[in-house]
Structures are given as structure tokens and as C-alpha cells.
């Protein structure tokens, strides 16, 4: 057993790529060893900006010898066949063995493959790993790049150290040959370092100011930055992303504390933090009371001869120039009102077929106003002239204004946030400022969901407009491609609606949004109007997009619910009913269903349902239309049954179990209908549960396929009625189990 060391030396590898590169190196190495039948013990991978390293412990010195047998023709076969067999297996005729196969003497070739030196396996594996390395972006370089077939690597590959035990694994790729030598720190160590083996690798590098273990460097950055801050009586604002990035940019990290002019603290904290982090990769720090302090921590890559004074001075100067720009933008932006900024949005194209951002803003405002004025079980029921209506209208019209500010031009990530600040500075109400700031939310999975009514309305309207707009112009997400983040928009809408318990009639809402998009679309597409009108004029496309959008909502809802642990078949069962476009009700129904099917009553009822369905299927009676009970609205009497005529069957006396089922249905059906109308889904489930006993007894005692066609018809009709009753709650045929 021997240890193996591989180091791939390179010009500076981007910090963000190093974690994946380590994983890839290990994966590719293991794959190569598996192929050769070699199993290593512990494998460790390291990275620095200039090298990727792998140490595999306890590799066997040789692969195992293998013996392969191959069955040939019978001994009596013509010479031609036997010769061919020999050629194929690379043996001579006298090396063949004759064995008995079912009483027939048959030739066998036995090929013994001796074990291969691990060193040889590695010598072939290293170039293969390098060639197969999946860098996100790779390049050619140097003289070899005269051919486009030359080796590609993330940056020029400059050396390979490959040592098995104490021996060199000699290999070569594109002019780079393996050896014992590597380099130390770029500035702390001149000349080459000779590595003896995997055991002394890390320590030899350490002596030359290279900490090859990325985790050790991360610890130094994390702890050193915290210490630099606490030594000055301050507290570091932790940022693990920065820890990893700085460790990926250094071979010998040295955290240093610097400061900036407190006058810059007028600028919002987020701006300072972003400037420091994104542009300079600095940590920011808080003072004792938790406010941003005029200090930062940078991470140098050397132990400077002056202790870092010049480095700190240099970094302070750079940050000061950056903050001066930010302060300039902050002050300049406040000289223009958001209303005036918003006018400039007419110069920014939102999408060539959907008009400018100003057009979008106007649509969003109208939609948001409409949303808050929805009646019935709707939203907040505001009306023109009241505060809510006014705030929604104002917030919507200002929500994108910060896109043309200097600050957001410089830091696009600050969209929304800056608008919120500027709205506050301009004396807008808190509700308006909040809405401007938060209307992009929720962005990701863990992001907060707004609850302030003004924010909710603007956020919903913004997302709905985007969604409907891109569907209208046929820019739907396909596969993994979703360039306009429409899936995220739908998920945002679902979460806004669910969190705030909004009873939003989806179809009506989409309709309203479509009506606003259509003229914008025609206007923006200019000369294409005729063509577009052709597509729109019969209303077909317009309609089909709405249905596609509903499906899209359903899909996203399923994904979201699945992630929340809800069984997808139950979601399907509720969705299959159709006709429900209120997300909150839909989810309540799914939730009640899940609770129900997990009870004994639920399970048994499901079993009874499946049995009834199978019988009906055989008889082709399952094609009859099913009308689900509509929640939240008075349905017409008797709309739930296709039963009345079939129930009245006076030609024979029903058997007791049959009669019991009829009675149970008579009792349960109105209860289910009423419960669903009242949106009491658990009650509806309880009412259904009363059918469990009668349906079980019915199957126990009654023969459906009676010889008397009248009885048979009546009983099939009864089962269909049972099925219909169950379908008032959910399409049980979609439920698994």
C-alpha cells in the first residue's frame, strides 16, 4: 500500500471555481481508479489559487491479476473457425484447452492478465483526468495554441507533481511533464521546491508560505478577520461567502483592519456593504451598538515587510474613492424626485414586444388598483379616493423609478432598496416606501413574503404583468430555460396569496391582466400589428394562453406543495376537478384531503371507490361527466347528481345493503355539497366518511352483475352515483394506494 500525491499547478484559478474543481478532481480520480480496479483509502483534495492537489492514501502497488475465459467452437469444428477464435483471443492453437460441454469436447481460451503496476495506471490516468476536467470556462495558451486542438485548462497549466510512494509517476500532457518540483508563494519564496512524497507535501509548502489546505485558510480568514475587528473593539459582520472567496484568492491570508472617513456613513449601510464586499471583497464591521462602523477588513496575500501598513493605506484609498462615488450618487439621486425619474422609464425597453418599462409601470398600477378594489370574497375592497387605493396607485407608479438612478445603475442588486430609501427621503408614506422597496419580494425560497397590503398588491401586479406579458408573446419557459424567471414569478404569486390568505379569483385576474397587455403588445410591436392581430383577432391565442397559464400555475403549485411535503397525487386529485381557480381554497382542500386519506375511513373509502371504478370501467360507465361541487359559491340545486332518474327504480325491491347505500348517499350528498359551498372541507370529508360502511356492505352483500338487466343497470347507476359523490371532494382516481 502506498500513498499518491497529485498536484496540478496553474496560473490563478478563479476563487469561485475552486470548490467544484476539488470535487471534480476527486470524482475523476476515483472513476479512473475504479476502471482499473484500484481502490484507494482516504482521499483528500486541496485547492489554492495556483494549485489543485489530491492525496490518495493506501493505494495497492498493483492491480489484481485477472484470468478471463472464453468459450470457443467444438473440437470438431472446421479449422477455419478454430483459427478465427485463436486470432480473436490472441492465442495459438496449442494454448487452447479442451473441456467437456454437455458431452461435447469444446475449445476454451484462458487469458491470464497479470496485475498492472499502479504507477502505470496513474501515468495514463493523470492526462485523462486533465483532459476530461469540466471547467466552467477554459482556454488555450502558448505556442501549442497554434492548433485549436491544444490542451484547454481554466488558465495555463504550468506543472504536474505526481508521486506514488517516493517514486515519480512519469507522465506528460501537451508539453507539461510531471516531476517532483513545484513552486512556493509567489512573492515569499523564490525558486522551486522539491516534494518527497504525499506525506511531506503540505508541510514543505507551508515552509514556503503556502497553506495548501483551503479549510485552514478559511479558518484564518474567518478568525483573523473577527480578531482584527474585536482587537479594535468592533464586531465583524460575518459573511461566509467572503471567507471562502478570500481563502480562494490567497495562499497565505493575512486579514488587516482598515478605516474610512465616517462622513461616508450617511450613505445607506447596504450600499457601503455592497461596495466593500462586491467590488473589494472586504468585510464590514459594526460598532458596539450594532451600527456600521467606519472600518473594514481586507485580506492580504503576504506578510508585508512593514506589517501591512502600506497595504492598508492603499486599500483605504481605493475604498474611499469607491465610497466617494457612492456618496456622490446618493446625493445626486436625491436631487431628482422619483416621479421625475419614473418619466425616464419610457426610454428603457422592457421587452421589444411589450413596450417600455414606463408602459409596464402603467399596467402594473392599473392592475394593482383593480386588485385592491376586488369585491366579494376578494381582496381589501378599497375604492378610488381612499388611502389604500391612493397608496397602491402611487407606490406602483414609483416602484421602478430607481432603475434610472445612478446608484442602481452602479449596483443593480440595490433595485427596490434604493427606491425605498429615496421614497422615504422624499417624505412618502411608510406604506409607499415599503412597497417600493419590497415589491420584488419574495425572490428566493427563503425570502420573506410581504404582508403589508400596499406591498402585496404592487408585488402581485408586477409579477402577474410579467407572467401574462411573456405568455402573450409566447416566451414561455421550456425545460431548464426560463430567461424571464417566470417560474419564480408564479411561485412568488402563490406564496403571496397563500401567506396572506388572499381569495384571488385567478381566471378573472389573468383575464384582467391580459386585457391590459394586449394593446401594449400591439403598440409596441409597431409594424407587426397586422400579423399579431391575425393571431389575436379570433381570440383563440388569447384564450389558449390563459389556459396554458392556469396549467403553469398548477404545475408550479404542485412543485411548491411537493417541496412542502404534500403528496403530489392528492394535489392532482384536487386539480383534476378543474373549475377551481382560488389558490387558497384549493390548498385548503388538498390539506383536508391529505388528512382524510391517512385515516382508516379514508383508506377504506378509497378502496371502495377503486372497486366501484373498476366495475364501472368494465362497463364503460366511467365516461359519464362528473361535476365537482363548487366551493364558495351557491350552486344550483341538484347540480351535483346525475342521479334523480336512476335512483327512482321501482321495478324491484332493493336489497338491504343496496337500500342502505342509497340512504347513505341521500344523507351524505347534500352535506358534502353544503360543506364545500361553505368552504368547510374537513366537514365534507367527514360527511363522505359516512359512506364507508354502506359501500363496504354493498360490495359484501349485493351482486352488481345481476342476471336481471334492470337490477344490473340500477346498481351500476348507484355505483356511479357513489363515485360522483366522492368526486365532489376530489378525483379519487388520481390517488395512489
Amino acid at each position, binding site marked *: 500500500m502506498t500513498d499518491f500525491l497529485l498536484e496540478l499547478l496553474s*496560473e*490563478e484559478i*478563479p*476563487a*469561485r471555481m475552486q470548490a467544484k474543481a476539488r470535487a471534480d478532481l476527486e470524482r475523476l480520480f476515483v472513476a479512473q481508479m475504479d476502471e482499473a480496479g484500484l481502490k484507494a483509502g482516504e482521499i483528500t483534495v486541496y485547492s489554492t*489559487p495556483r494549485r489543485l492537489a489530491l492525496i490518495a492514501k493506501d493505494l495497492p502497488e498493483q492491480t489484481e491479476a485477472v484470468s478471463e475465459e472464453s468459450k470457443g467452437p467444438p473440437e470438431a469444428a472446421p479449422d477455419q473457425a478454430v483459427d478465427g477464435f485463436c486470432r480473436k483471443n490472441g492465442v495459438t492453437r496449442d494454448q487452447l484447452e479442451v473441456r467437456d460441454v454437455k458431452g461435447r469436447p469444446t475449445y476454451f481460451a484462458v487469458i491470464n492478465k497479470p496485475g498492472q503496476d499502479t504507477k502505470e495506471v496513474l501515468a495514463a490516468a493523470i492526462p485523462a483526468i486533465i483532459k476530461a476536467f469540466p471547467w466552467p*470556462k*477554459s*482556454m*488555450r*495558451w*502558448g*505556442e*501549442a*495554441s*497554434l*492548433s*485549436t486542438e491544444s490542451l484547454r485548462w*481554466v*488558465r*495555463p497549466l*504550468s506543472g504536474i507533481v505526481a508521486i506514488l510512494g517516493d517514486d515519480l509517476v512519469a507522465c506528460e500532457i501537451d508539453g507539461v511533464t510531471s516531476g517532483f518540483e513545484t513552486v512556493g508563494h*509567489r*512573492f*515569499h519564496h523564490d525558486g522551486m521546491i522539491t516534494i518527497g512524497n504525499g506525506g511531506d507535501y503540505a508541510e514543505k509548502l507551508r515552509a514556503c508560505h503556502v497553506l495548501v489546505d483551503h479549510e485552514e485558510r478559511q479558518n484564518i480568514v474567518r478568525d483573523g478577520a473577527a480578531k482584527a475587528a474585536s482587537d479594535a473593539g468592533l464586531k465583524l459582520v460575518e459573511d461566509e461567502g467572503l471567507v471562502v472567496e478570500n481563502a480562494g*484568492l*490567497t495562499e497565505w491570508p493575512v486579514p488587516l483592519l482598515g478605516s474610512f472617513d465616517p462622513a461616508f456613513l450617511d450613505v445607506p449601510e447596504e450600499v457601503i456593504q455592497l461596495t466593500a464586499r462586491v467590488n*473589494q471583497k*472586504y468585510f464590514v464591521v459594526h460598532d458596539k451598538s450594532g451600527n456600521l462602523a467606519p472600518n473594514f477588513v*481586507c485580506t*492580504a*496575500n*503576504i506578510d*508585508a*515587510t*512593514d506589517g501591512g501598513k*502600506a*497595504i492598508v*493605506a*492603499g*486599500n483605504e*484609498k*481605493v*475604498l474611499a*474613492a469607491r465610497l466617494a462615488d457612492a456618496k456622490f450618487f446618493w446625493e445626486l439621486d436625491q436631487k431628482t424626485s422619483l416621479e421625475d425619474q419614473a418619466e425616464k422609464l419610457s*426610454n*428603457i*425597453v422592457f421587452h*421589444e414586444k411589450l413596450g417600455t418599462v414606463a408602459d409596464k409601470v402603467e399596467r402594473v398600477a392599473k392592475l394593482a388598483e383593480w386588485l385592491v378594489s376586488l369585491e366579494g370574497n376578494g381582496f381589501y375592497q378599497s375604492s378610488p379616493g381612499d388611502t389604500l387605493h391612493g397608496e397602491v396607485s402611487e407606490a406602483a407608479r414609483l416602484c421602478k423609478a430607481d432603475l434610472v438612478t445612478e446608484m442602481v445603475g452602479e449596483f443593480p442588486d440595490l433595485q427596490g432598496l434604493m427606491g425605498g430609501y429615496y421614497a422615504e427621503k422624499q417624505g412618502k408614506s411608510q406604506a409607499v416606501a415599503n412597497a417600493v422597496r419590497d415589491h420584488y419580494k419574495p425572490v428566493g425560497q427563503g425570502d420573506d413574503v410581504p404582508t403589508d397590503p400596499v406591498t402585496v398588491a404592487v408585488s402581485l401586479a408586477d409579477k402577474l404583468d410579467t407572467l401574462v406579458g411573456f405568455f402573450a408573446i409566447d416566451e414561455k419557459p421550456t425545460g431548464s430555460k426560463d430567461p424571464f424567471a417566470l417560474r419564480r414569478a408564479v411561485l412568488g404569486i402563490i406564496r403571496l396569496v397563500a401567506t396572506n390568505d388572499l381569495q384571488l379569483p385567478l381566471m378573472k385576474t389573468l383575464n384582467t391582466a391580459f386585457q391590459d397587455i394586449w394593446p401594449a403588445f400591439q403598440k409596441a410591436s409597431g409594424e407587426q400589428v397586422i400579423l399579431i392581430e391575425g393571431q389575436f383577432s379570433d381570440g383563440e391565442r388569447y384564450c389558449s394562453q390563459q389556459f396554458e397559464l392556469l396549467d403553469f400555475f398548477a404545475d408550479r403549485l404542485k412543485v411548491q406543495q411537493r417541496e412542502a411535503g404534500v403528496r403530489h397525487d392528492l394535489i392532482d386529485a384536487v386539480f383534476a376537478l378543474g373549475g377551481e381557480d382560488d389558490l387558497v381554497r384549493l390548498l385548503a382542500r388538498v390539506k383536508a384531503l391529505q388528512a382524510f386519506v391517512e385515516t382508516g375511513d379514508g383508506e377504506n373509502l378509497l378502496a371502495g371507490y377503486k372497486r366501484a371504478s373498476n366495475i364501472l370501467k368494465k362497463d364503460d360507465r366511467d365516461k359519464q361527466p362528473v361535476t365537482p361541487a363548487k366551493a364558495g359559491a351557491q350552486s344550483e340545486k341538484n347540480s351535483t347528481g346525475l342521479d334523480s332518474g336512476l335512483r327512482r327504480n321501482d321495478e324491484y325491491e332493493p336489497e338491504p345493503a343496496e337500500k342502505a347505500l342509497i340512504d347513505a348517499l341521500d344523507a351524505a350528498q347534500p352535506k358534502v355539497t353544503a360543506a364545500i359551498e361553505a368552504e368547510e372541507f374537513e366537514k365534507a370529508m367527514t360527511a363522505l366518511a359516512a359512506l364507508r360502511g354502506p359501500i363496504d356492505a354493498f360490495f359484501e352483500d349485493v351482486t352488481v352483475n345481476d342476471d336481471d338487466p334492470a337490477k344490473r343497470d340500477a346498481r351500476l347507476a348507484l355505483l356511479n352515483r357513489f363515485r360522483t359523490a366522492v368526486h365532489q371532494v376530489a378525483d379519487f382516481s388520481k390517488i395512489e394506494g
Partner: protein
Amino acid sequence: MTDKKPLSFQQIILKLHEYWGERGCSILQPYDLEMGAGTFHPATTLRALGPDPWNAAFAQPCRRPTDGRYGENPNRLQHYYQYQVVLKPSPPDIQQLYLDSLTAIGIDPMLHDIRFVEDDWESPTLGAWGLGWEVWCDGMEVTQFTYFQQMGGFDCKPVAGELTYGLERLAMYIQGVDSVYDLDYNGNGVSYGDIFLENEKQMSEWNFEVADTDTLFEAFKMATKECEQCLEKKLPLPAYEQAIKASHVFNLLQARGVISVQERASYMGQVRDLAKGSCEAYMAKNGWDA
């Protein structure tokens, strides 16, 4: 820095000339056309194409009309200098050569933190891209370091290494001054401001307020037409000059604020077509295959 008096602006250029000249580079003089970056110089763009070795260094004045600040911002100029080094094929020790050049102009790498930070380069206008870094000195970007992979839509065979030093930034750093106008230009009492401040004021005014847009639109059309004529006559060098001119005129029109967002893409597309056409013609004229 050190106890020695730091280099003046012109000494930095002279030092770099000397340094790269000794390492086999042809020291060129600036190209006599307005351009937005040293990369536009035919010694970079066109010479990056084809198989022939090429090593050159030069200082190139760059014009970015929209960056003008009427001489009021200590860091931003509409006219400044880049120092360009093109090494083709990229030598194996190019990073060390570069670091030694920093030492030559007075930056001690044991006193200052020098880092290679990922920064890929792409110029849609030139149909070009490359991988490399921005080089940081104590957190300040002082050089753009790129391995050209494609130019004018053609694979670079072989790849050239391009170093672009921001001369004013470097000089401000080396001399420890906070405003570009305070730079010691000649080591003998003349400042950068003495030479360029008035130029920044007047040129900013012209770029932003005065330049006649009708004339500029006409100039853009003329350059486009002339470039196309040269391409027809298989004259890539004059064609490329017209592409450079069109690009600069477009930048001026941008500064005058007369190009809408929608039109912008179309203008850039036109400039790209001219530049790529010139590269294609250059390849063809030299008999090189893509």
C-alpha cells in the same frame, strides 16, 4: 514606496518602453486615430490574428467621451493613456515578466499586495473574448491581463497575451497623489493638470454639449460606406481604420445622448460588422484559414 523619488508619469512610460524593449518587443508609437481602448490598435486587434509571432508595446491615448467630467473628478477622464503589451504566442513566463515590470516602475511586491483576480474580457464590438484577470495592487485594479481566445470571430491560433496598464492609476499609486491632475508629469515641475486639465474641460463641453449631431450621424454613415468600399477592394487595413472611426463617432453620439436604447444595439451591430469584416478581409488577404 522607497526613499527614492517616485517615477514621473513620463518616466513610467519610458521605463516600460525600456523594460519591454529589452524583452524583444517592438516599441510602437500611438496610433493616430481616436479610439476607446488600446485593444482597438491594429497592432493588437489585427496582429492577434494569424500564426505569425508578434511582440509589441506602446502607449495609446484612449477616448471615452461619456467618461468626461469637465476636469472636476479626480479619477475620471475622457482622454487618458493605456500602456499595451501584446505577446504572441503568450510566453510561459508571462506572469513573471509582468510582475517584474511592476518592480521596474517602483512597486515592491513584498510591501504591496499584488493579486490576480478573475476577470474575463469580451468585446462584442470586435467579436472578441479572452480569459484572464484584473491585477490588483492593494485592492486597486492596475492592469487588465487577457489571453485572447477569439478575435473578429476567429479563433486565435496561437493565443496572444495582452497586458493593459492603466497608466494614470498606476502613476497616482506610485506617486501617492489623490488627483490625476496633481501627477508629476516630467519630474521637473510640470503636472498632468498643466497639460490636460484645460483639454478635459473643453473636450467635455464639446463631447456633451457642442458636437454637431447631424455632422456626427453623417460621419458615421461615411465611415460605414468607406469601410464597405475598402472591404470590396480587399483593403483590410484602411477598412479597419474606418471601423475605428465609426466606433468613435458612435461613442460621441452616445455622449450627446441622441441614441436611444433601442438604436444603441443596432449601431453597435453595425460597428461589429465593420470590425469583423475587416478581420475577415485581413485573414483572407494573408491567406489564413479560419
